[in-house]
């Protein structure tokens, strides 16, 4: 009968309308800004730099200014200047650090390629999105002070990933320490071996 399809369709809208008052499946609206969506762990929006220590963010940046991310960034929105001097990193090894590290968030497309290519786990993806501003130039260009966020924050936003990264870093560090210890021991042994034949005669002689 002509009109049956129409009536059935109206039935669907009526069901949805009534359902929108009591059926949880139909109550889809999120009352932003009072209620915020729970972001999934994997969510990514703009990179940040990981620091080991929240009290001294600039001193404990993991970044060693190798500039790989700068080269790989598809829209070329990262700008790094290397430091002239070196600072000890977490393992105590002297490393370069970025004197200037800037990301232009007005260009960044949050593609995560900088994170994937970073060999030092130094740059990770943030989850901030409420960054609308009235100023394009200084507000949207983030410098290293604004980019630096602590490892604890990283654990907060990406717990699983951060735990993996920490485990990997700890393993690497341990391996490096063992290697260094072994190297030191070998060196000491070599030095001892080398020292003994030409050992200076005791002063008393």
């Amino acid at each position: 009968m002509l009109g049956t399809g129409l009536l059935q369709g109206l039935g669907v809208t009526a069901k949805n309308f009534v359902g929108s008052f009591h059926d949880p499946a139909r109550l889809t609206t999120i009352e932003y800004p009072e209620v915020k969506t729970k972001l999934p762990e994997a969510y990514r929006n703009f990179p940040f730099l990981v620091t080991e220590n929240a009290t001294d963010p600039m001193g404990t940046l993991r970044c060693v200014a190798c500039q790989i991310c700068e080269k790989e960034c598809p829209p070329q929105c990262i700008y790094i200047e290397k430091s002239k001097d070196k600072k000890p990193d977490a393992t105590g090894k002297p490393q370069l650090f970025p004197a200037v590290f800037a990301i232009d968030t007005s260009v960044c497309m949050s593609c995560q390629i900088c994170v994937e290519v970073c060999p030092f786990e130094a740059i990770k993806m943030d989850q901030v999105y409420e960054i609308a501003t009235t100023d394009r130039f200084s507000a949207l260009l983030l410098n290293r002070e604004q980019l630096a966020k602590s490892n604890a924050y990283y654990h907060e936003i990406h717990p699983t990933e951060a735990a993996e990264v920490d485990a990997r870093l700890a393993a690497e560090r341990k391996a490096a320490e063992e290697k260094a210890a072994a190297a030191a021991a070998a060196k000491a042994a070599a030095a001892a071996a080398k020292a003994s034949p030409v050992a200076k005669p005791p002063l008393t002689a």
Partner: protein
Amino acid sequence: MESPEQIRDRLLARFPGAEISVVTNPGIAAQHSLLLGAAHARAIAEFLRDDPTLKLDQCSNVTGIDWPEKEIVETKNISTPDPANPAAPPKVVEQKTKRLQPGFLEVVYHLYSITHRHGPVIFRLRTGNRTDQATVPSLTPVWRSCEFQEREVFDLFGVTFVGHPDLRRILMWDEFKDHPMRRDYVEPDDYEWEPTPHGAVLEKAKAHYPTPPAPAAVAPVKGAVA
């Protein structure tokens, strides 16, 4: 499906005197192609479309490629035996010859058969040069799908398709003069501000700001501990 060599042989038998050669693809994909001369391209295209064993009724993709002219330096070792002392090892002279390989524009067509569900058969057309002889015959009368794609190649590469029913710019505006997909295209210099310059952008930045601004003027990194 027939190999490109078989197709070439069949085409040569059908069109004696046509310029047809196989371009081998050195890559792993090994999608070899046929290079057709402009004179018989249209007739060959119709043959490929109508031939009962090939029946390439769909022209899927039309691509323009720019090959600018390049200088090729060939090094040749010429050994000249010493006339005075034939027993001595011949003197080897390295001779370099410079050769200018003329540039050309190339249009690549990927054909598939919907009837027989095979493909791709790839063929290429080349223009005489990149300036005054940048023409190839249009295949829009053979496959309708070439209509917009050939217009795009005309717009971005500057290949003129002879016999195209409506050859106008398609993506850029009509007043535009350049062909931006060519390798030697120079962008208009509308650089004004870029906080994270690299490579070519950095060169532009240096040209626009010959003296680096004072550190205080560098707004984005204010507060940075240098």
